[in-house]
């Protein structure tokens, strides 16, 4: 069985929003990383990951998300997250991801703070 992750990219003048749908495991994490690295190579410095349609993550997927954050930090940019389920939020905190990325309750709050409004 497979639980493919889908990623939709929404480019904005000041950055990009990645909307994920599905399971963030090793394959899903790599899919997000591919999209994020393409954006970084294109000069994008702010990426918001909206996880509204992701209900399950695993530790391998999160470790890939941390790698993306580190790579963005090396480039002087910023990764943020919004719309996490309570359990994914808790999992991010346990994995240490919350130490490196801001987590917003809503997309609106994130867009305002990151200046990503269209």
């Amino acid at each position: 069985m497979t639980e493919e992750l889908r990623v939709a990219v929404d480019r904005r003048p000041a950055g990009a929003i990645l909307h994920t749908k599905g399971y963030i495991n090793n394959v899903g994490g790599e899919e997000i990383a591919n999209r994020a690295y393409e954006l970084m190579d294109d000069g994008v410095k702010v990426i918001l990951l909206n996880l509204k349609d992701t209900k399950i993550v695993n530790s391998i997927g999160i470790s890939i998300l941390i790698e993306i954050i580190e790579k963005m930090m090396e480039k002087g940019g910023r990764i943020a997250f919004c719309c996490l389920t309570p359990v994914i939020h808790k999992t991010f905190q346990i994995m240490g991801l919350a130490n490196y990325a801001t987590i917003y309750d809503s997309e609106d709050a994130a867009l305002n703070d990151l200046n990503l409004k269209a």
Partner: protein
Amino acid sequence: MTMTAERQMELTLPMVPDIEIAAARAAGNLAREVGMSAERIDEMAHAIIEACINAREHSGCADQRIYLRFVGTYQSDGNPRIDVWITDHGRGFDLAEARTRRQKLGPAYKRGRGIQLMEAHMDEVEIISGTAGTTIHMVKYENPADEKTS
């Protein structure tokens, strides 16, 4: 405390990619039947996923199977309790050594947090491992406070 089994399920699953999702969904269905809340089910699902991934990635078992048992009962206050057993017939591991190794690797090493996540998401976790394999027994309570007082 008296534990009366209201719902039981046993599964044998092949070690194929994403099989952990099937395990988590099956446990979630049973937990819903006994009335566990969505957030508690979600936490349990994430713990089961980590346990299945550990079995698939590290057990090295010849039969390439994960054996699962879920039991739904009720606490003394009437709230649901779910017991989960996840077993592989692999080579086993030394839990103390695994914890020490993980600590030595430090926070910069991003992998190897499966047991930590299981412990954070479940109310009780017991790992029994030997040369014949590993069994992880985890318990999720709807109301953990009741267990501390009863």
